[in-house]
């Protein structure tokens, strides 16, 4: 009985502060309707960008730490035709595939920026994961420099000659970022 009462008081306090519990917070951040997780089909490719606030990273990896100096974004890319692999897209030439693999492993980092208020923030942390199953999307785990002032909107810009002549832009909204109830 006592436990129920404490739980109810705790719940009421959380509800009053507008903070979300761990599961609700993770759901909120991953929901496409809340602006932190965006997907877009452009020029034959499907882009999916998940913004990862430091609170979410700490939920998933408790030893992640509290260094909040970077914007963390996980980007996945695959051809809209799900049967095709990103590095094998419209080619069977082994040399072309190897060049693409090298490009996505190293050079792609220089072609991605995060923009806010006209300022370009470079990608300073980059990790590429090639899927074992060719039909799965390729994953890029990235970190971008953070301005001292808080951003309400940021735009992930991919200006890659291997993807499109035109830059691909994905707008991420940080305006609705909730607080996590600890």
């Amino acid at each position, binding site marked *: 009985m006592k436990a129920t009462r404490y739980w109810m008081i705790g719940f009421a306090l959380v509800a009053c502060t507008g903070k979300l519990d761990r599961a609700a917070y993770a759901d909120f951040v991953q929901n496409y309707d809340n602006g932190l997780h965006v997907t*877009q089909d*452009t*020029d034959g490719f499907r882009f999916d960008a998940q913004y990862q606030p430091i609170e979410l990273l700490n939920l998933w990896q408790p030893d992640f730490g509290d260094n909040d100096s970077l914007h963390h974004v996980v980007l996945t890319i695959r051809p809209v035709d799900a049967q095709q692999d990103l590095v094998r897209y419209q080619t069977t030439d082994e040399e072309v595939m190897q060049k693409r693999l090298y490009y996505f492993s190293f050079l792609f980092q220089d072609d991605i920026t995060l923009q806010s208020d006209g300022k370009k923030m470079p990608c300073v942390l980059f990790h590429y994961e090639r899927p074992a199953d060719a039909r799965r999307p390729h994953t890029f785990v990235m970190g971008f420099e953070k301005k001292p002032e808080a951003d309400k909107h940021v*735009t992930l810009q991919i200006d890659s000659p291997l993807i499109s*002549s035109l830059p691909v*832009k*994905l*707008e991420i909204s940080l305006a609705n970022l909730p607080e996590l109830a600890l």
Partner: protein
Amino acid sequence: MNFKTTLLMVQTIFILCLMTYIVYTELAEPSAYVINQKVFDGYAGKKVLEDKLSVIRKKNKRSQDSLLVLFTRSAAAFDGTAYDEMRRKHAWQEEQLTDEFTESLWLRINNDIKAFGAEKGYAFIYGATGDGGLMYANEAYNITEDVIQYLNEKYEGD
């Protein structure tokens, strides 16, 4: 059948036809047109690719000028063949890039106009090219400016 009954029947048929027409026009998906060249020129992506091409052109020009200066300053006789070869190569590269960029722009514009049409509920969006494909259209159906605004918002990732 007297005159009054006939008149009543004609009136009823007329009202029914009018109502059917109103319902049909209200429910039917609208059609509209855009002026292709204006959409192309107003698209924000065009400026980005023009700037990219301009950077490449300037770089090529600098290489050509450097080669020319090198020949002028050196004691060796001016080798016009190497210079012409470089100019030809650069011209070909710039032409290829212009074609590639134009193709990319139209690909992106066409895809985004499809999205615009689906979102706004249009049955058809015609592209007026000025070559007689669309001989006449009422200005009220011209949605060029709306399309340019939509494309540019989408280009910015909105």
